[in-house]
């Protein structure tokens, strides 16, 4: 059955393609599903107020991270949200770095092309998907669509399981920071606060987590969504 949805007219092809792509079948083995792992750099933590500065993406195909298909772009912030001192401290990005970068209206279709037909993977959905959602609403009046997976949520899922087994005896407070999590599973950590590096760290964390979802069996997309899904 075809579902009609009210959709603003005159959307760019990239956006339409993104919205109309078939969703991956949740029954597929996880390896047969393509993923795009995204990380953003912003001027702050509030998607309504703060601006996107950079986006990094790596793709995962057949269970392998493809460095040859990595993607990184700076984003020119709107004039009403200039790069503040705090953001400079975190990312080392200066106003002149992003001055000549493409604006959101060019970047978002490019991002959506890379997300089309793929499962989005992020670390802490509130931020990464929050900023994407804000940009899509503002530009096209549409919402990002799932399925998407949050590695922080996956980590929380494992930690909760561990606490259930151990009782309150667990010695460590739940830590969901990307770097701490990557280190805790013995992964190499790339320099932080660069959207591409963080996307790569997230992608590696994701692969490590997948091997924990069903240790003796190949997990299906459904299993991953159940443990760490974050967008319908």
């Amino acid at each position, binding site marked *: 059955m075809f579902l009609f949805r009210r959709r603003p007219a005159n959307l760019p092809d990239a956006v339409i393609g993104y919205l109309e792509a078939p969703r991956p079948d949740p029954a597929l083995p996880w390896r047969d599903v393509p993923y795009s792992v995204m990380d953003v750099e912003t001027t702050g933590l509030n998607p309504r107020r703060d601006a996107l500065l950079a986006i990094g993406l790596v793709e995962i195909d057949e*269970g*392998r*991270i*493809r*460095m*040859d298909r*990595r993607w990184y772009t700076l984003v020119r912030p709107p004039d009403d949200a200039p790069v503040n001192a705090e953001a400079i401290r975190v990312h080392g990005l200066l106003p002149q770095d992003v001055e000549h970068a493409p604006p959101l209206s060019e970047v978002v279709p490019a991002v959506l092309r890379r997300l089309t037909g793929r499962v989005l993977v992020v670390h802490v959905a509130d931020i990464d998907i929050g900023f994407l959602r804000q940009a899509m609403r503002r530009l096209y009046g549409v919402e990002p669509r799932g399925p998407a997976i949050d590695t922080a949520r996956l980590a929380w899922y*494992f*930690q909760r*399981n*561990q606490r259930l*087994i*151990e*009782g*309150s*005896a667990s*010695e*460590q407070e739940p830590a969901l920071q990307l770097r701490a999590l990557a280190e*805790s*599973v*013995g*992964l*190499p950590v*790339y*320099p932080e606060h660069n959207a*591409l*590096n963080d996307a*790569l760290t997230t*992608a*590696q964390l994701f*692969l*490590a987590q*997948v*091997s*924990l979802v069903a*240790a003796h069996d190949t997990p299906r997309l459904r299993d991953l969504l159940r443990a760490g899904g974050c967008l319908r």
Partner: protein
Amino acid sequence: MDEIVRFLLEHPPFSQLPLLQIQRIASAVQIEYFGQGVQILTQGGKPAAFLYLIRRGSVDLLRERNGVVELTDTLSEGECFGYVSLIQGKPPISTVRAHEATLCYLIPAALFHQLRRDYPPFAQFFARSITDRLEQALQQRQATAAPELFQTRLRDLITEPLVTVAPDTTVREAARRMREVQASALIVDLPPYGMLDAGSGIVTDRDLRNRVVAEGRDYTTPIAQVMSAPAITVPADSLVFEGLLKMIEHGVHHLPLSDGGQIIGVVSYRDFLRLQSHNPLLMPQRLARAHSDADLRAYTEQVTATVGGLLDAGARVSDIGRAVAAAHDALLVHIIRDAEAALGPPPCPYAWLVLGSEGRYEQTLRTDQDNALIYADNAPEGAEAYFEALAERVVEQLVRCGFPRCPGNVMATNPQWRQPRSVWQNYFRQWISVPSEEALLQTAIFFDHRPVYGTLDTEASLRPIILRARENRIFLGRLARAALRQTAPINFFRQLVLERRGDQRGLIDLKYRGTAMIVDLARLFALEAGVPDTNTITRLRKSAGHSSLNETSAEELIAAFELIGLLRLRWQYQQLCQGLEPGNQVEVDKLTPLERRELKEALRAVAVAQRAVAVTFQTSLIA
């Protein structure tokens, strides 16, 4: 990206490539994560499509030949695999399996071939590796010799059939029986044979010569009149080394072996010689000849050196512990006898107790002294002064032999730990009935006591009281809590939890967060099951099924204990050889991938057992 470039720059043969090529590789790699045990390549299967470079973790190379799968190598961070298959374009010659969780950079075949073509040193590196690998595999097959003395059980030495005769058998008849079956010794016993009691004994070739022929006795003399009784026996599962010490200690050449209260055979000194080990066969004889301080010191140094030899030869830590305990016990007995000789005979029965690791037969390298003394109640006047003098002499002599005083002053020289029987009984009564977690931590080593010398029966004196711990759930609960003060340093991701701070960074304490955790659990289970043994492995084995410990967990904990103990001992011995003070903090980075993996598995077993204890004893509910 930069990170990948940096990694390639550090590892040959990539490090020899121009930076531009390295950057090209970094931007072309694919990254794959393999959970532990995942098969990456399959021998005879699909040819490799990538060159695999291990970024984190390690992999096993396994080769099947004539139905036998052999581990040929383990590769770790910075090493490559898959190139033989890539170069030859044929199915892999080995199966590659993730040894632990492993992250790999995958270099596409086309790029690999292009680099080989353009950079001859790069090509040569992989060509050479193939031959290197074959040589290595060959070398590994040349097995090292086993140290018979320390790995063989006495029961395996039995060559003579067990000959048993009734006590009224004549000497002539007994000698005939020995000739018939070519035995050099026989057991004198009443039917049903093999149940030794005070009336049974042993007769050897030597006895017939010395006590019958040389004495001119009549050949119709009942054999009971010339036998040695009671016979010195040892458990059949004792190590050859222990048997040897027993023989020297008692000046005998034959040892009947007991198993479950029955005599199952006799071993002779000749059986030992047949083992022909160049190992420290001479050690016990050295002790028997030792008279000066220098001799005794040399003896203890020899014991320490032996530990290294045993380690190299692949002995288990539990065996090394037993061998060292036997050697140290012999030394201690020697020292106490000297003290008695100087002070005169003891005024009343007493026993010298060793505590802690020594009490558990788990001492390996020399450690601090932990000892105590218990003597009979209603001792005559002056007994206290006698035992004080005895303790001073013995402790002082042990110090001279290289066993430092206990910093916590748990020694027989401390009047608190040199008391009559009734006081000791009160100590244990109080520890069990009014348990405080703090006190339990300090008194735990007393539950690991064993007598090494003396005639006072400590088991009869103290065991009935210690057995009361079984019924005292509050005591067991507190003990459980004390046992869980340290948790196994491993997280849900099966990763080791290392120290993160300061100079402890990257270290793991294999005692406090390793063997000691298992010792504490074993003590708990043993007290719960009423098992009197002190040795951790024996405790686990015997309390399985009779306490909250089940057989599977017991086996896992035993394996974990052996493994962690071995890693710790190897590490300490290395430090000792480098002239350093041996410690328990191990740098995880310096362990081999295989050791790391085994350590993880061992700690995981401990973590599982700890969780079970937490649930059983509801440790979180005890205020």
